[in-house]
């Protein structure tokens, strides 16, 4: 039988606020900061301490809600989610339950079958927990992260493959970065995924028992975890078995899911409205102000790039995958005399390759956009060959420097002077009489080989169009 997965995603994203959700403690890098450096009575749950809501966290949450097309509720309620765990200092987490901040949004993703909408069920605010570590028979708790504002974004079970899940996750990641509400540093755990997975006979509209996979902390884990779980469940059905409702963990090393707790030991969180916080009431005018301040989002930006700059859809999507990259493209394009399409292929090609090779962030390019624009223009107006252009770009990445100076220092300027090129060709032809003979005998594929020899002889400076014309002309002359 053919099976179809039904997948919904819960995403926890840390919000980029200066201070924590319910106290004034500074938010610090939870990987590098000294443990328990930014803690206070509130975020360590000292008896008698009380939460005070961080306005900025609400603002960022509203930004996300609006960007996802959600309805923002002018009144929402904080609730206590009660459970015992040492990383949860109060014995409950302040979250939102039956009256969340935002509901009913959507994200458009690209699939093989074309664009698809994933519905967002809800977006709500909650606080992060502390971090546990274990060593030498002891357990340690770091409360630096305790009380950091988190946004939980929950989809409807709309995804039908791990690829769709990945497309959704990367799109959401891009949107959060565009909105400047999250650092996007996956390796620091600022975005964490939980996937709800079930499978059913392909084409059915029945919803089968689902499992929840926790601790999916990278796109890779998300893909592997859902893939594994789909396979596991399909095999159970194939054998005629039943899938148990349970909570699963994911092991990054083995790529497998494992049972954490079954249905019978599922938590009853005993939610009730948080009495220490009054209902969160928002002014519609404040929401409107935030709406007006929203940046252009990846989808709209890609559409504009396609229309305005005539980019290929794939290139437009690549360039808009990160706001900084899109901004960089527009910056270089505005400074260059070359067509935007040309700038786009430079950035999507050679530039991105260097960026990846050198693990550089697009905001930390070691040369100004003007220099890159002039380099592209030199290639466009043929004063530099495409190959030399790549060499110069590499040099700029490695050691900085102005493109003109590099061209001069390395003597790379492209020459269209026919005399110079003709001289070089004549030498190549007289040095290789056997190849000339073969060519004249009909092996015309050797033309490319001759071009290579000419490029070598001219150190890549010969304008290839001019060189090709002259080469053909001189070879033909020898036929006579």
């Amino acid at each position, binding site marked *: 039988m053919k099976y179809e997965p039904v997948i919904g995603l819960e995403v926890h994203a840390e919000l980029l606020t200066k201070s924590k959700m319910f106290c004034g403690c500074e938010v610090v890098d939870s990987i590098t900061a000294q443990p328990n450096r930014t803690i206070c009575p509130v975020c360590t749950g000292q008896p*008698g301490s009380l939460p005070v809501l961080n306005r900025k966290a609400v603002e960022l949450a509203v930004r996300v809600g609006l960007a996802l097309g959600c309805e923002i509720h002018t009144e929402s309620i904080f609730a206590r989610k009660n459970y015992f765990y040492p990383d949860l200092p109060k014995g409950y987490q302040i979250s939102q339950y039956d009256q969340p901040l935002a509901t009913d949004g959507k994200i458009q993703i690209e699939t093989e079958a074309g664009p698809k909408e994933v519905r967002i069920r809800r977006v709500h605010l909650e606080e992060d927990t502390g971090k546990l570590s274990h060593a030498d028979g002891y357990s340690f708790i770091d409360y630096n992260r305790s009380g950091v504002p988190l946004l939980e974004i929950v989809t409807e079970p709309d995804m039908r493959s791990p690829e769709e899940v990945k497309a959704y996750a990367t799109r959401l990641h891009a949107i959060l970065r565009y909105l400047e509400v999250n650092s996007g540093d996956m390796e620091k755990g600022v975005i964490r995924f939980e996937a709800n997975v079930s499978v059913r006979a392909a084409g059915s509209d029945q919803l089968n028992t689902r499992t929840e996979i926790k601790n999916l902390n990278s796109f890779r884990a998300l893909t592997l975890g859902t893939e594994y779980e789909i396979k596991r469940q399909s095999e159970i059905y194939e054998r005629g078995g039943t899938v148990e409702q349970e909570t699963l963990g994911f092991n990054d090393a083995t790529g497998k899911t494992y049972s954490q707790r079954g249905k019978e030991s599922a938590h009853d969180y005993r939610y009730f409205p948080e009495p220490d916080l009054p209902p969160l009431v928002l002014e519609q005018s404040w929401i409107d102000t935030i709406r007006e301040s929203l940046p252009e989002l990846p989808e709209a930006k890609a559409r504009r790039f396609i229309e305005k700059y005539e980019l290929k859809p794939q290139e437009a999507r690549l360039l808009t995958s990160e706001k900084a990259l899109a901004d960089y493209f527009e910056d270089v394009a505005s400074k260059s005399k070359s067509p935007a399409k040309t700038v786009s292929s430079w950035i999507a090609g050679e530039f991105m390759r260097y960026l990846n090779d050198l693990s550089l962030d697009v905001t930390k390019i070691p040369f100004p956009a003007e220099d890159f624009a002039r380099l592209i223009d030199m290639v466009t107006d043929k004063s530099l060959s495409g190959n030399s252009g790549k060499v110069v770009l590499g040099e700029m990445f490695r050691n900085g420097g102005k493109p003109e100076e590099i061209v001069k220092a390395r003597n790379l300027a492209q020459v269209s002077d026919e005399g110079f090129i003709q001289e070089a060709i004549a030498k190549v032809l007289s040095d290789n009489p056997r190849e000339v003979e073969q060519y004249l005998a009909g092996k015309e594929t050797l033309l490319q080989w001759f071009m290579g020899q000419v490029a070598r002889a001219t150190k890549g400076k010969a304008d290839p169009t001019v060189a090709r014309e002259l080469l053909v002309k001189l070879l033909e002359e020898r036929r006579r």
Partner: protein
Amino acid sequence: METFELGVQETHELLASRKVSSEELTRAYLERIQKLDPQIKSYVTVSEELALEQARDADRRLKTGEGLTPLTGIPYAAKDSLSTRGLRTTCSSKILENYKPFYDCTAIRKLKSTGAVLLGKNNMDEFGMGSSTENSGFFTTRNPWNPDHVPGGSSGGSAAAVAAGLAPFTLGEDTGGSVRMPASFCGVTGLKTTYGRVSRYGLLPLVSSFDTIGPMARSAYDVALVLEAIAGHDPKDSTSRMEAIQPYSEILKKTENLRGLRIGIPKEYFVAGLDPEMDASLRAAIRQLESLGAHAVEVSLPHTQYAIPVYYLILFAEASSNLAKYDGVRFGLSERDGEGLLDVYLKTREAGFGAETKRRIMLGTFALSAGYYDAYYLKAQKVRTLIRQDFEKVFQACDALITPVAPTTAFRIGEKVTNPLDMYLSDVFVVAVNLAGIPALSVPCGFSNGLPIGMQIMGPHLSEEMLLRIGYVYQNQTDWHTKRPPCWND
């Protein structure tokens, strides 16, 4: 006359005229505590060194006259649920027996800044769960009027300390009568403040939606002086009220009568079974108020009978969550000789919590559980709204309500402790006030068999000023609040 016999205002005059120093005064109180408190047992902790240090600081202020307030140099004590930095704060629970907070409760911080001198912390029912202090994890406080009787609860230690001359004023905390009931049992004046009028920051919570800190003293005037110092908005408490506080004591000085005041007598609070002497005392008090210009009308609060079940349901639910943090991980008792994490939780809570606390945690956990939430917690909240609306309606017909504080005077130690339901019912006249979040003042208005009777004066939200005016004018005309228990001269 000994210094301990003076109220806050008289003591302030003595200090301001430099006839006595704060240090002398503080030493006198500490000596009296040392001598008398072994019988009364109103203090869990006496902070002698800290008190003398604060007294000497106050004396420096008194000398220069700089930053002088009516409370500068005046000793006081606080219920042991108010966090005091570096000073043991136990909530009279074994689970917090050695817990020293690293920050001050806002009310304590405010008193510190006025130069008041903290003598120590008062006994209470564990985490405020009780009406007699018999649920204290340490010992039962005695009623200064008769040591065989309870002082009331849960702020029993704070009421007994004021009644026995072991502090001129104390800070109590009222979740469901915990200031008013012991004030009435011990014959002192106690104010349950409007919810949010005094910051809860640093108050170890029982029921976050009901908890209020309020002063206990020997007169309404003294209560007003303390209220001025501790009330007001606190950015650290999101439920604290924004409205400015009033110059309560100044207003009192200008008040001579109650002309034009409409007082409501809710019939549901004067029911058959009310102690006849108590009924008579309250009727007499109402007549006294009428003679001062007030106009009494009978009114009705029809949902009164639901107040007890609604109050306790919400209490169980919130308390079960508020007490979750006592898990042996970060502070307080920690039993670590078990097998693993679960054992730390189980053994710590088993050893640390008393029977009543465990009972309430279990009931609350149940009431919040999936499938029961709607029937219990949610239903209780809906009825709570009806009770609140009762008060809103009745305050259109009158300005204040007069009722008894408790159905009886102080009961005997051991009389109710074996029957939790009977104990819960002793809160019948006080809990509706907490459900509505309104303020209420308890003032002494008579005696029955040598035990004090209290009158409860309720008003709408933020009507502390009016309640204190009624109490003040009443106390100007009567001497119930000046009666002293037999141990006074010990």
